[in-house]
Every structure is written in C-alpha cells, then in structure tokens.
C-alpha cells in the first residue's frame, strides 16, 4: 500500500474512534433529554413524546424557588471569593510584607484540606451561630473552600503585571486602594472571569454543603432539590430526567460561553 493511502486510512480510523468516544460522552445527555419528553408510560413503552413529565415536575417541585436559591448562593459565594482573592492576590504579589510569603503558603495549603475533614466542626460552629438554613452560612463555607485556589490564580496573574506601574502611581500620589481599583482590578478582568466561571460551576453543582446547611425546602438549591427528589419515594424517571436537565442547563450555558476560561483555569496548575 502506498504511504499516502495508508495515512488516509489511519486518519479515517482515528476519526471513527473519536466518533465512538463522542457517542459515549454525549449519550447520557441524549438519554436525559429524550427521556424527559416522555410520560411514565411512554418511557416504559420506549416510544412517543409528551410534556407530561415536565408539567409533573413543575407541579411536584418548586423549581423556580430552587433556581432562585441556587442563584443567590452561587452569586454570593462567587462575589465573596472574588473580593478576598483579588485583594489577597494584590497583597501577596505587589504589597509583600514581612512574612507574606509564609502567609501566602498557608492560604494555599487550604487547597489540601478536604471539605469532609472539617465539615463537622464547621457545621457545629455555624449551627451555634444560628446559620443553619440561612444562605449566608452556605455562602461563607463555599467561599472558604474556593478562596485558596482563587487567591493562587489571582496572585500568579498579578505577578505578571509590572511593579513599576504601581510605583509610578505611588509617586503620582495615588493611594494603594486607588491603585487597586483603577489599575489592578481592570487589568485582571481575564483572571477574574476565569475564577468566576470555575466557581459558578463548582458552587452550582455542589451537593454536600447545600445538603447540610440549607436543606429546608424554602432555601434548598436545585441540586439539593434534585437529590432529595431522587431519594424520595416518587420514582418517575422521566420527571427526574427533566429535573436533571433544568439543574444542568445553567452550568452548561456558562460552560459553552466561557469554555476557554475554564480550560485556562484548569491548566494553570501545570503551566506555572
């Protein structure tokens, strides 16, 4: 066989393999969508389509409330993470003080603490402060868990900004707060976006913190709501799939828009 033809066949085989992998990766989503548009009977029969399960879902579960709760907790958590990571990153990269290197390492080591290792005392503490079923307790816990990596990303990013820029502004009489607001924050928009996208998906998708801290039906997030539904006695699979779709959709949209930032955030761990 001539080498040109051999290469074409090889590329065809590769394409075929990649297609098979794509089917394996996407099939669950197809299953989820198709199933959600069937009633219970249609699901058993394996044919026909209807909106029964969707109306059933909206009747059985306060979807809009749960979406609102998820939005509050996610927005609050991300906002708090952004506040502490941008200010912290600024301090650790440009305003180094005596021992700041060690302090920075201490913050980073937070990444090595599994949530489960501290969740019991944290839960008891916040329960003493009447934080159970309050959004603020979940927001604080999410922020504390997300902040170490976010601070790492911000610090690395700020280190790339020339220090001369800050020194020049200081000579012009700008305060460190003004420099932060007028110089550092605008320059860091790409890093801020990456942190925000990573954390939105992280918090939106989380179960454990939500399950423990905000489990009352009135304050439940959609992810917790879905888990409760699954573990309940009602087992309408199409309805569960419809619920899954609703809960996954916001994160998928964020993913589709900000895919690039997500990949950047992920690979930053190796490149630096």
């Amino acid at each position: 066989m001539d080498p040109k033809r051999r290469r074409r066949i090889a590329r065809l085989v590769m394409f075929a393999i990649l297609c098979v992998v794509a089917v394996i990766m996407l099939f669950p989503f197809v299953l989820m969508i198709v199933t959600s548009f069937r009633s219970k009977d249609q699901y058993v029969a394996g044919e026909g389509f209807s909106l029964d399960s969707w109306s059933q879902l909206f009747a059985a579960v306060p979807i809009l409330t749960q979406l609102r709760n998820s939005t509050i907790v996610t927005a609050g958590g991300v906002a708090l993470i952004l506040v502490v990571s941008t200010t912290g990153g600024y301090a650790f990269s440009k305003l180094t003080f005596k021992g700041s290197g060690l302090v920075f390492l201490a913050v980073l080591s937070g990444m090595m603490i599994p949530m489960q290792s501290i969740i019991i005392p944290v839960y008891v503490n916040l329960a003493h402060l009447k934080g159970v079923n309050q959004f603020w307790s979940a927001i604080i816990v999410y922020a504390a868990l997300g902040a170490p990596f976010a601070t790492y990303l911000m610090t690395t990013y700020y280190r790339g900004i020339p220090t001369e820029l800050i020194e020049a502004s200081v000579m012009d009489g700008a305060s460190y707060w003004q420099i932060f607001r007028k110089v550092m924050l605008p320059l860091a928009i790409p890093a801020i976006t990456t942190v925000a996208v990573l954390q939105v998906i992280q918090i939106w998708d989380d179960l454990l913190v939500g399950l423990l801290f905000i489990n009352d039906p009135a304050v439940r997030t959609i992810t917790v709501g879905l888990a409760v539904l699954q573990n309940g006695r009602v087992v309408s699979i199409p309805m569960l799939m419809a619920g899954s779709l609703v809960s996954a959709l916001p994160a998928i949209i964020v993913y589709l828009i900000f895919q690039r930032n997500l990949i950047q955030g992920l690979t930053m761990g190796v490149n630096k």
Partner: protein
Amino acid sequence: MTTTATPLDASSAPAAPRRRRTGLRRKQHIAGVLFALPVLILEGTILAVGLGQAIYYSFTRWDGIQSTWIGLGNYQRLFADMNFWRVVLNNLILLAAVPVAILIPLLVAYLLNEHVLGWRFFRSAYFLPTAISWVVIGMVAIRVFAVEGILNNLLAAVGIDLQTNLLSGEYSAMLAVAITFIWSVFGTNTIIFITGMATLDREIYEAARVDGATGFTTFRKITIPMLMRFIQFAFILTLITGFTALFSLIFIMTGGGPGFGSTTLEFYVYQQGFKVGAFGYAAAIGIVLFVVVFGISVAQLRLFRSRLD
C-alpha cells in the same frame, strides 16, 4: 527580597536619605496586611479553626454539644473497625481506577492532537461533563447500570446476557462507581494532555517518522516521556478528585451501599457524623482522610521540585 529584612534595619539606622523610602515601605507593608486580611479572616475562621477543632475533637467523644476527652480512643476503634477497612478497600479500588482514567484520555488526546476532521467539536463534547454536577451524572448513571438499562442491552446485543444491576452487588457497586468516575474525569484529563501536547515540538515527531517509527512507538517513546509533568499533574488531580469529590455521586448512585460496598472515606465521614451522630469518631475519619490527601499533595510537590533541580 528586601521586604523580608529584619525590622532592626528600619529602626536602628534611620539614615536621613532613606527616611522617605522606609516611610513608603512601611505604608506599603501596612497596605499589604490590610489587603491580605479578608482572605485571612475567611480562611482562618473556617479552614484553620475548622481543622484545629477537627483534630481536637477526633480525640473526644462528641455529640455536637458535649465532648469527653478519650485520647486515642477513636483511632483505636477505627483500626479495629472492620467496616473501616472495607472503606479503605473502596478507596484502593478508586486508586486502581486512576491509571485507567489517565491512559484512556492520553490515547484520545494523542488522536485529537492529529487534528482530524471535527477535532474542535470532539474536544468540546469530551469536556462537557466538567460542567455537569455529580448529582446529574449519578442520576443518569443509575439508568445506565439498571437491569433494563443501556449497559445490559449493549452487552446483550453482543451476546453477553448479564441481566444484573452492578449497583446492587456488594462488590460490583464500587466497580460501577469507578466506571462512572473514569467517565466523568475523562474530559478534564484529555484537556490537560492536549495542552501538554501543544507544548511539544512537532519536529521531533517528523524526525521520528523519518527514522521509520510507527504511531505506537512515537506515542510510547516520545509522547509519554515528554508529557511526564502533565501525566503526574493529572494523576494527582484525578486521585484527589476520587478521594474527596465523589460524595454526591455515591450519595445518588448507591448511598454508600449495599452494606459498605461503595462507602469511601469521605462518605464514611458523612455517614458516621450526620447519620449515626458519632461526631468525634467521624472527625477522626476526616483526619485520616486529611493525612492521606495532604501526604499525596506534599509528595507531588516533592516530585515537582526534584524534577526542577
């Protein structure tokens, strides 16, 4: 760095020309501390205090309100607890799944890197599960492994009539969780390896081709060694994900069962703490998990360092 000089320098030698500079530096130090405060307060009150308490309470019998010091009691009980060793075994199964969760993405990334038709689409499709919650993944996985589910149908189509639900077997449940886990981290690892391969020099491949090396040989002799740093990173990330991020998946898929068939360390903490109410005992399990994860992380840092030297 001048900022880490001893404080004596500033106070004992306030030479006149330096006064303005030291004044500025002091202002900068104060600003630095102030800007670092928010993250320190947050991490201090939640993570540091939490970890300190977890360590302390792991030596007590604790119900959330009252605690009694029992020394190493919890740890002694832990090592004599047969269920604990079953749980450790489950973590070892996850550990065994990690090489698979590395190798498949490595091969696929190698193919993607050839930039065949539609490779951008494939990349997005593979990475999509990264955005999906473990809860949703678990829900779909249950349907895949069900008796009438896709897996059995597929196997039946090729002549293997199993008719079993992996999730209902005490030993097969963990296998199902591990398979789902491998599926979930596939996209992330593929992306890591594609990023790594983009840093490789194409000329090496050309040279290898000229020398008559086949695809598999170049993969084994060039790609893998050159990507070692990325493979190591993916390995640690996958392992830590497996040990600390599968709570929701297990909660949905199996609830840790049958028996302790799919309870991992992190799930055992939740189960002993919030289901049984043995907070002190659960804290001790959490500390064991912390030691394991911390050890893995430190080992990774060591490896990175030794490579840099």
